[in-house]
């Protein structure tokens, strides 16, 4: 896929304008409940998986490493422009 085609594809798939229009019509409470559900499930999944992989690690160690990974990924997302 050429870079131009990929950009067009990304734009169509993302449909940012459509997302924003949907946000305008969705009650905040519904959006926040969805957020809390996704957040809690992801958190519990992460802790369960890490405990299986590294039984010697404390819960706090797992949490701190999760945030370290989060910071690393955030940095990567923010450097996304360079890849375009």
């Amino acid at each position, binding site marked *: 896929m050429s870079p131009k085609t990929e950009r067009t594809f990304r734009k169509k798939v993302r449909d*940012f304008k459509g997302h924003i229009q949907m*946000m305008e019509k969705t009650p905040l409470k519904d959006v926040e409940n969805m957020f*809390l559900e996704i*957040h*809690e499930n992801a958190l519990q999944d992460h802790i369960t998986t890490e405990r299986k992989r590294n039984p010697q690690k404390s819960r706090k160690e797992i949490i701190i490493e999760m*945030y370290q990974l989060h910071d690393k990924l955030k940095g990567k997302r*923010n450097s*996304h*422009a360079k890849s375009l």
Partner: protein
Amino acid sequence: MQSHYKDALIQIITFLERLEETHKIKYHLVGGILVNLYSDFRTTRDIDLAISFKESSISTNDYIELLKQNNFKAYQDWESAKTLAKEISMIQFLDTSETIRFDNHIVVYSTPNKYKKIGPLSMKRRVRATVFGVECWVSSKEDFILSKLVYGGWQDYRDALGCWMRFKEELDIPYLKEKSKLLNIEKEYTLLESGIEDPDEFFERLA
């Protein structure tokens, strides 16, 4: 369903609302926690907040002691938190269940640092809002956009663009224009005003 995130938010807002009354410390929520309120849906793991000691008689170290007394937990240890607070004006700590991280920015006045300049502006115009059912102080929409344009990552631009597209009819445009000059983000702001509707295009045009 239990939510560690909402529990942590209630803990910190209860604590900070009390400090406003007793110690005149001002606070407001900033960053990713406001994205659902102001922009497009996305999740975040931590809770960002800014505090100002300008009208308070207590020091950063006193504030850290109060965090300890109120059962908040150190991210690493409290001594490192004190050192980081001095060096980068930010305190990182965890909620009482040691699950949710708070990134607590300390507002710095009179600074040439563009990332820190947004702090006093945002604190001055903070607004009352209900976030996850909790009434609290938050950054205004205009300052949310300005801070996102200052930080300038792909996700930040996406958040700013979403807020602009949702609320452009009600934003304080003269304020945004004036402060974008002050913060040296006129190029980014002009692009936002141009009617662009996709985050990738936003980036390409800035490159």
